[in-house]
């Protein structure tokens, strides 16, 4: 791959629809991903044994990387406030537990979250652009985005148009991301690829590069509404993409696996993957996030198990 | 449908069929006061043990007329459910590595050996002499081991690289046919394992109609299969009237092949005719000798050969 020769792929969108053919050539010129090989590599990294002090370090890092998420049709202001309370004090019994990185909600509930988190450094992230399907006119997607930003969202999690991507209409996908990026203003843009619908690792790599070149600050695996959601090999391919993108352009892009990460063991495997693929530069909440909800309590339980040497029960951790 | 009590009932151990094995009569010698707990013999569909949806049973008697048990009398709807379960299991089972299938089949043999005494009891109840019953169980276990070993060898023995005249790499591999309907012979254990093992070892799934007069070992075999890591639905076992069930299997359009091992001669023709409806592969009855070397016929009968061409060039 001649990533070193992609001179135009800087931090801001530099391409337009007129560049569609070039975009296609570029994306299809990326080196292929061998499915068996990438899955084997991910599986092997998953055998890393993270114990004692390394485990304690990883648990705290993972807690600080959590985007605590609620994305249900049944979400209410009450539910969001409860989640925010949890985000601020993950473990009421232990003030040393770090806060999570962000709370992630639907755009109409951003205001509630902003108010609940006011004065803290916990960010408010909002899904937008007709999450999770993304099937809406661009104008509606932009309106959705602007509403979230105006309500105070620090971060926007948009979905790409998978239909356009799978149909080969890369220009449309690119332009939508670029437009949403513009609508974000100062808010950070996370671009959800919905890898479960892209199916192949080749597509995941292409979509990652497409999103980064269109201005994504983060690339994110999944909405959590499609199975499979985040997997280790998919995340591995995306981590390779951000690594290569930085090598080519100098701009660092974050990665966020989301969906299906429920246990401490899972979370630590992702951190190992980051550590040994993109490298330690990505091991901060600024560059790596985990989209999850039930994960947090497992991290807290394991944290206390490490400290107390007693296996924990769920009754001792708050459910919000 | 299924009851927890249907599986894993504690098998009688030791060789005392009087002590409450099959047909459990009140015991005579050892524990005069104790009444044996009998087992309910049910169907085996999708890894569960349901009764027939029809609610029917039929009495199974020993050759001398003694009542042994009521077996479920399966209906056409049970056939339908069993075929559905077999189809659902096919993708997963055929997608396992041959090595994994071999391991699971070998595990089945281990479990079979563990139920040795129970099978001997059931075969004696079905009329075999004590030594003959033990030999039959020995042979059945060894037969299962023999087929287990084929899992990762079929491809090498039945496949080939074909030296075509041209710049192509060409190879043929055997693949399982799909869902196989098996009408088991009346040899209640050895005959049964001799028709079930070769069907599933290559990745097929099956619906088995057990021996009509001696169905009880088949249900015990189901209990073995259920505790052997074999995925539910790979083997489904129905007891009942062969003449009632076989035509439904033969005409079912989601069944890919038929083994007519246990079908009387006069019924073979009509069943083959029904099977022609979707061009099922049919293995006709091959005679009753289940003791000798079985060869590979029963394996290859339920395989498709897939040939792949690929150009060779820079």
């Amino acid at each position: 791959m001649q990533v070193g020769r992609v001179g135009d792929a800087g931090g801001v969108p530099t391409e337009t629809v007129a560049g569609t053919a070039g975009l296609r050539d570029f994306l299809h010129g990326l080196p292929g991903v061998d499915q068996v090989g990438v899955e084997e590599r991910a599986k092997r990294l998953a055998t890393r044994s993270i114990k004692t002090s390394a485990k304690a370090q990883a648990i705290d890092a993972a807690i600080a990387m959590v985007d605590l998420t609620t994305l249900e049709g049944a979400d209410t202001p009450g539910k969001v406030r409860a989640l925010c309370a949890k985000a601020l004090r993950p473990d009421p019994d232990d003030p040393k537990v770090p806060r999570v990185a962000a709370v992630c909600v639907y755009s109409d509930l951003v205001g509630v979250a902003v108010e609940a988190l006011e004065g803290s450094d916990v960010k408010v992230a909002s899904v937008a652009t007709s999450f999770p399907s993304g099937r809406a006119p661009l104008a509606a997607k932009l309106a959705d985005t602007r509403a979230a930003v105006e309500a105070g969202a620090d971060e926007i999690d948009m979905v790409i148009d998978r239909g356009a991507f799978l149909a080969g209409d890369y220009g449309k996908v690119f332009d939508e991301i670029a437009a949403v990026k513009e609508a974000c203003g100062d808010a950070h843009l996370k671009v959800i690829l919905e890898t479960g619908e892209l199916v192949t690792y080749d597509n995941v790599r292409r979509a990652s590069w497409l999103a980064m070149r269109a201005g994504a600050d983060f690339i994110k695996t999944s909405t959590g509404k499609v199975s499979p959601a985040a997997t280790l090999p998919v995340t591995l391919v995306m981590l390779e993409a951000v690594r290569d993108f930085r090598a080519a352009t100098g701009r660092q892009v974050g990665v966020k696996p989301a969906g299906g990460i429920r246990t401490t063991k899972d979370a630590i495997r992702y951190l190992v993957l980051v550590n040994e693929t993109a490298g330690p530069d990505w091991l901060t909440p600024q560059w790596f996030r985990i989209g999850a909800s039930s994960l947090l309590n497992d991290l807290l339980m394991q944290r206390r198990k490490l400290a107390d040497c007693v296996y924990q029960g769920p009754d001792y951790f708050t459910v919000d | 449908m299924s009851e927890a009590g249907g599986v894993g009932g504690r098998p009688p151990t030791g060789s005392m069929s009087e002590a409450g094995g099959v047909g459990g009569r009140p015991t005579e010698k050892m524990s005069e006061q104790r009444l044996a707990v009998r087992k309910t013999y049910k169907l085996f569909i999708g890894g569960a043990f349901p009764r027939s949806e029809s609610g029917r049973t039929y009495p199974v008697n020993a050759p001398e007329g003694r009542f042994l048990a009521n077996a479920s009398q399966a209906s056409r709807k049970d056939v339908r459910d069993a075929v559905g379960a077999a189809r659902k299991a096919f993708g997963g089972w055929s997608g396992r590595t041959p090595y994994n299938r071999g391991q699971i089949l070998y595990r089945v043999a281990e479990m079979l050996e563990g139920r040795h005494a129970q099978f001997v009891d059931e075969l004696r109840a079905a009329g075999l002499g004590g030594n003959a019953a033990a030999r039959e169980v020995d042979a059945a276990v060894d037969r299962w081991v023999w087929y287990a070993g084929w899992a990762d060898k079929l491809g090498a023995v039945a496949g080939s690289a074909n030296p075509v005249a041209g710049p192509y790499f060409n190879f043929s591999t055997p693949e399982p046919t799909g869902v196989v309907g098996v009408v088991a012979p009346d040899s209640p254990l050895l005959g049964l394992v001799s028709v079930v093992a070769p069907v599933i070892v290559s990745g097929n799934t099956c619906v088995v109609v057990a021996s009509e007069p001696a169905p009880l070992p088949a249900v015990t075999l189901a209990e073995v299969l259920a505790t052997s890591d074999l995925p539910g639905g790979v083997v489904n076992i129905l007891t009942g009237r062969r003449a009632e069930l076989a035509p439904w299997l033969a005409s079912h359009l989601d069944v890919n092949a038929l083994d007519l091992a246990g079908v009387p001669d006069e019924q073979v023709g009509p069943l083959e005719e029904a099977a022609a409806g979707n061009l099922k592969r049919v293995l006709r009855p091959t005679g009753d000798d289940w003791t000798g070397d079985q060869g590979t016929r029963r394996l290859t009968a339920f395989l498709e050969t897939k040939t792949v061409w690929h150009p060779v060039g820079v």
Partner: protein
Amino acid sequence: MNFDYAPAPESASIVDIRPSYGLFIDGEFTDPADGRSFKSVNPATEEVLAEIAEAGAEDVDRAVAAARAAYENVWGPMPGRERAKYLYRIARLIQERSRELAILESIDNGKPIRESRDVDLPLVAAHFFYHAGWADKLSYAGYGPDPRPLGVAAQVIPWNFPLLMLAWKIAPALACGNTVVLKPAETTPLTALVFADICRQADLPKGVVNIVTGAGETGRLLVEHDGVDKVAFTGSTEVGKQIARSVAGTRKKLTLELGGKAANVVFDDAPLDQAVEGVVNGIFFNQGHVCCAGSRLLVHEPIAEELLDRLKARMATLRVGDPLDKNTDVGAINSAAQLEKIRMLSQVGEREGAQRWSPPCELPDRGYWFAPTLFTGVAQSHRIAREEIFGPVLSVLTFRTPDEAVAKANNTPYGLSAGVWTEKGSRILWMAERLRAGVVWANTYNKFDPTSPFGGYKESGFGREGGRHGLEAYLNV
């Protein structure tokens, strides 16, 4: 965040190493006739692990006689289905004791526990499992309706995969009805001795498997013994040639699995990240102590620079150290002698003008260690491109066209294996057709399976191990 993995040592408490071990002959551990012994050492610490009996001529006689008696009286006449069940038992016992064996293998050999646990032991069990299934199906293997065994097999194995090589030798021999006398390598005898115990747990008839420990002289006595019908050797090409000379003119059937200098060929359309993994796995797996290691990397010139950058970055993440740490990727060099050989050839590489590179890498103070090493600017005329180093040392060469890649890949007296990396299927097959090697891996490397025949062309030996083809080595056909 600097994510340092804390030590994660595998507990060695399930391994019980005795202070001394005898010879396993006729179902019993016995002392050698002349009482000689040698020491087996943990290469990661240089600690002595145990005293091992050294078999002399008298002991080898006894072992061969025991094997002969077992062959004539028990194992030869036994029906295949009964032999099968013994082999299944052994396979199961290995599965049951696999963690113990993996740890012991790592202690004795120096290989990382991750590999002994995840590669060696599963393959060992699979090998017995697979061949168990052949024991009662030999008439279907394509060697006639009733192929007969050879008799007593003399088997000499190397130290790089001690138990796996034992399995490759013993499983097919027993499945085909032969009995064996096996000599493990002098630096790695311990798992073979536990295997002897497994034979006893399986109630294997005495004399069917005999294990005689010792060094090269014991091996020579064994393969030259008049009482053996078959010689199987895995090891260096040099010793292989000596053995070939010694069995010349005898009735003994011979198979040899010898050295290699495999080319791993990466084209510009390869799946690059996986190719990097494959190159790393090809040469740093088992510290490069692999006869089929991809020790010559042939890179297509358009991507040479980029591939090397990625390869170096990847090598920098390799974790070298304690073999029993579950996170170790590269363990200890098996012996002081092997370490010396690797050092010597690496120095020759530098002297001949190749550029040497290793990632920053802290090596333990005690034990035998060698950092993963890369040589660039290597030409076919360099010794490091021609001689088998048998260590974690990769020589990088480049090519311009597929023909050139084939010419360079084949430009060696060896012919054990090769790798091809390209997303173009027809090119894989075109390369495979032309590569003079017994195994060609495409878009993968160092893969083994009991169903897949393994063995070399040219001076990498003859005969195959594994698969239907591997049975021929132990049948009178």
